[in-house]
């Protein structure tokens, strides 16, 4: 069993790495796009096997209940995104925004990004995870800047600087954790291994842990996009290629949050350390409220949904900060559904921007008339992201608000009003985008609707009926997170 498991773990990591090298070498774009999708698919298959086959935790890699959910999710979204990116990139080539050379670069980078994220999720070593996340960040930076417009360069540069500072803070936190650990566990790799850390956490020096968590929260929180560390996120979403926006919102933010969660579980295992809850709750609430007000003045469609990602990361952080089985369950579920929904929305947005030739919302009108499938897809997406039934996010927001209200009424009211405000902004824009008399080019969008509606289908299914197995799984993980 176990060795089979490690084979698949290897596959999850090696397939992206190998295909990255291959894609960098291959010239033709048609093939590379397909190859990209194929590689992602294989990765996804390998990852989903990990549900059943797991290796024992090693020094560097581990597959446990917490990360297997994320790894499967991220490989799945990676796969669907690669499908979408196929049709997206083809259009970019025609319009000449990308040259074949950049395209090879793009595909290679895509796979490296996948590799980085999978590594970060699978790593059992806080240092290794740090390296992996940095790798993922660097690749995304390069992809964001790929169009080389002044705006793109600025976005990339901003992302780069803020990201690097975040990375630095995270590293300091990591070192502190090691310091806290090695006097208990002893020097060497064990002092950086998750399974060991969580087990021995109660004996660590609480003061060091506190300081460490503070740095880790800020460092990785920069990647999560929590206010006030969020500045890079909207522009990175707006200026990069849309598949990358989808991956950013759908996966990278999750990975960073995943790191925060790992450390939270270490911290909360230590009785002497302070409770991380209030800190996360306040950051989350701040993000929700700030982002929802920022939505009102947006004119760029992708940047708007970038802000909505900030809002939802805020909700998730809030939920995990509240803690407790219900809130954690809701947080996990929200994380999963949000990455599905948001990536699907970005698929739609990408096609819309291509069909209309602009991301400037005032120039886009009446999509449900001119491009029914895309338009209704957008409507569906906004309804889903706003937490309207029958989509799944309703369940999570229901749980978060009700459980919070029973414990801290004011927090719940603030959260609810924040959500309502954000919804107001989104709906206002949606009215303009999807309805009214169409305006702008009515060119049919040669789009791949499969990924979009596959995601929406999953979200819908989750809203109506969660498979009991999955539920127990989430509940189990939620209980692990305390």
């Amino acid at each position, binding site marked *: 069993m176990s060795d089979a498991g490690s084979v698949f773990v290897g596959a999850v990591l090696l397939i992206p790495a190998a295909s990255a090298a291959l894609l960098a070498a291959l010239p033709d774009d048609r093939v590379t796009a397909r190859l990209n999708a194929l590689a992602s698919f294989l990765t996804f298959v390998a990852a989903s096997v990990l549900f059943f086959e797991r290796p024992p935790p090693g020094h560097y890699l581990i597959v446990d209940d917490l990360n297997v959910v994320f790894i499967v999710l991220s490989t799945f979204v990676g796969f669907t995104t690669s499908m979408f990116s196929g049709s997206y990139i083809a259009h970019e080539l025609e319009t000449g925004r990308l040259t074949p050379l950049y395209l090879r670069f793009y595909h290679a980078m895509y796979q490296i990004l996948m590799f980085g994220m999978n590594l970060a999720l699978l790593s059992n*070593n806080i*240092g*290794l995870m*740090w*390296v992996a996340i*940095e*790798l993922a960040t*660097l690749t995304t930076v390069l992809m964001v800047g790929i169009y080389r417009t*002044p*705006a793109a*360069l*600025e976005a990339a*540069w*901003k992302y*780069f*600087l803020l990201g*690097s*500072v975040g*990375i*630095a*803070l995270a*590293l*300091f936190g990591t*070192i*502190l954790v*090691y*310091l*806290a650990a*090695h*006097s208990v566990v002893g*020097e*060497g*790799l064990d*002092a*950086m291994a998750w399974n060991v850390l969580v087990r021995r956490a109660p004996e660590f*020096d609480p*003061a*060091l842990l506190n*300081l460490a968590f503070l740095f880790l929260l800020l460092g990785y929180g920069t990647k999560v996009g929590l206010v006030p560390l969020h500045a890079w996120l909207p*522009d990175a979403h*707006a*200026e990069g290629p849309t598949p990358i926006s989808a991956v950013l919102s759908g996966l990278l933010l999750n990975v960073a949050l995943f790191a925060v969660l790992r450390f939270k579980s270490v911290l909360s295992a230590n009785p002497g350390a302070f409770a991380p809850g209030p800190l996360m709750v306040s950051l989350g609430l701040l993000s929700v409220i700030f982002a929802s007000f920022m939505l009102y*003045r*947006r*004119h*760029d469609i992708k*940047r708007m949904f970038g802000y909505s990602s900030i809002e939802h990361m805020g909700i998730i952080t809030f939920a995990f900060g509240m803690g407790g089985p219900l809130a954690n369950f809701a947080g996990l579920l929200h994380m999963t559904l949000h990455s599905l929904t948001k990536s699907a929305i970005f698929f739609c947005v990408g096609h819309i921007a291509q069909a209309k030739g602009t*991301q*400037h919302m*005032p120039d886009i009108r009446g999509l449900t008339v001119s491009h029914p499938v895309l338009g209704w897809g957008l409507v569906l997406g906004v309804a889903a992201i706003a937490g309207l039934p029958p989509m799944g996010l309703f369940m999570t927001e229901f749980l978060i608000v009700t459980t919070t209200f029973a414990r801290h009424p004011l927090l719940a009211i603030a959260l609810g009003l924040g959500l309502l405000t954000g919804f107001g902004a989104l709906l206002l824009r949606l009215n303009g985008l999807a309805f009214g008399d169409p305006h702008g080019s009515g060119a049919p969008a040669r789009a791949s609707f499969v990924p979009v509606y596959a995601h929406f289908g999953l979200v819908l299914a989750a809203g109506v009926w969660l498979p009991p197995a999955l539920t127990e799984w989430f509940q189990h993980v939620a209980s692990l997170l305390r």
Partner: protein
Amino acid sequence: MDRLALDVAHLFAGGLVLVSFMLLYQDRMTGLVNNFALHALVVSLAVAWQAHIQHAPHLYITAAIALGVKAIVIPLALHRIIVQLGIHRTIETVVGIGQTMLAGIGLVALSIIVMLPITAKAGTLAQQDLAFALSVLLLGLLMMISRRNAVSQVIGFMSIENGLILAATGAKGMPLVVEISVAFSILIALIVIGVFLFRIRERFDTVDIHALHEYRGEQP
């Protein structure tokens, strides 16, 4: 002997903080770069010393990287950039040097206060050295935000990184230090290349909002 070893380590760490203050003090571009070279030199010495007292030969690699890349290559590259991009020789600061220094003092004090409750259980690298590392980190950040041009921001960032290397090597027997320092050097190299490639002077650092509108794609 052991006592002496720690004292020397502390000496290097303290020296690093001092050099960070000198960085803050500098208002000429060339002087800044040279100062940074000094900063990197001190770090490499500190790392080498740690390698010596921890009997961890692999740390010499880190020291070598620090020396080679950050004390020699990057300063030279930066000098070329300054010449080629014709960046002003004087650095325009946001607030006066004096206030910046005061803020720096405050940050050092803060980092010491934060470190106080950490028990000696933390091991050989006790409170002071972590405090020093933290101070270097904060001072670097302070430098990034109190200088208006990209090069000095890059230098600030690199000083942060030096502080981190210091802390990392100080953490006895920490694995992956070399890998991490390598990764970090790559990061920095990219940043410098970025500055050079994208011709970043003060361009994105204007406070003129109208100039930013078009970049942020938010024209109404």
